[in-house]
């Protein structure tokens, strides 16, 4: 990051703008795999500790609190330009940690909901979440080996999606496939946002 160093020497540091995309979906659907496939660095993990009193390490009683859970999110990064970085966050597998979803969805460009046709219903909570919060999203159907293939129309029908939500097949292990999903997601998000704006 020579550019940043030299800018800093010149005075005020000029830091990159950061944007993010959320990768959501049910348990074991390939979220971590997709983050790892597209990330330019080894994916990292960010954690938050929950106590029975809520988030983080609050007041003194926190020291003795026994009911603690760690919620983890995997994330990766793609340097778009020297002044623009894209982060991809895989949501925690268990949907009950909504506060982490809120944190990561706020200000996101959009979301990819991964679905597995063998357990399609697992993606309903994610779909509901992004619909309710008006976060633009696409549904990417992860093609697990041996999974029964449905047509995209059948899947769309089963998900009861609004007409303009793109649904596509993908393989979370394949860069070209993930890239296509992300491009479609950003295009969809762009048209949605511009619609809202005008």
């Amino acid at each position, binding site marked *: *990051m020579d550019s*940043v160093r030299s800018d*800093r020497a010149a005075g*005020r*540091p000029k*830091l*990159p*703008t*950061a*944007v*993010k995309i959320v990768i959501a979906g049910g348990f074991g659907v390939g979220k971590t795999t997709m983050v790892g496939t*597209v990330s330019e660095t*080894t*994916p*990292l*993990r*960010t*954690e*938050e*500790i929950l*106590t029975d009193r809520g*988030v*983080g*390490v*609050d*007041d*003194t009683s*926190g*020291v003795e*609190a026994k009911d*603690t859970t*760690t919620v983890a999110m995997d*994330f990766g*990064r*793609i*340097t*778009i*330009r020297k002044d*623009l*970085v*894209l*982060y991809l*966050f895989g949501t925690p597998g268990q949907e009950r940690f909504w506060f982490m979803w809120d*944190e*990561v969805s*706020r*200000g996101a*460009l959009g979301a990819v909901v991964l679905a597995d046709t063998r357990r399609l219903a697992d993606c309903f909570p994610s779909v509901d979440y992004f619909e309710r919060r008006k976060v633009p999203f696409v549904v990417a159907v992860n093609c697990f080996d041996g999974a029964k293939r449905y047509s995209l129309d059948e899947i769309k029908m089963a998900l009861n999606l609004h007409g303009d939500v793109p649904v596509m097949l993908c393989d979370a292990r394949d*860069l070209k496939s993930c*890239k296509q999903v*992300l*491009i479609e997601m*950003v*295009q969809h*998000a*762009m048209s949605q*946002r*511009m619609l*809202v*704006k005008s």
Partner: protein
Amino acid sequence: MTTPEDTPERLLDDHAGPLVRPYVMTRGRIQPVRGKFDLITQVIATGPVPTAEVGLGPEHLAIMRLCQDVMSVAEITGHLNLPVSTVRVLLGDLLERGYVAIQEPEPEADITDIRIYEAVLNGLRAL
């Protein structure tokens, strides 16, 4: 998921549980004195790692080492293997004292800037 040799954890008592350690590092504080620190907020040290500066703990110094190059809050938590809330408090201390500079992400209302979408699309296509 690397754990650098000098993570704060190694400097602290093993008997202290996962909850106690972050608690001690922040001296019980849950809110940073300054800054909101989104997960993707960019952070950079404004100078070299201070030596034996009064009031800075080993975790503050570990952050200063990491942030010699620009890095997000999420990446700091990942490299140091510390909870987000703890890192936010430590960063607030550093920001307050001018040891780090930050760039918050675009607020939600501003991501209607079409140029950002176009730049992201171009970047993804080039992957």
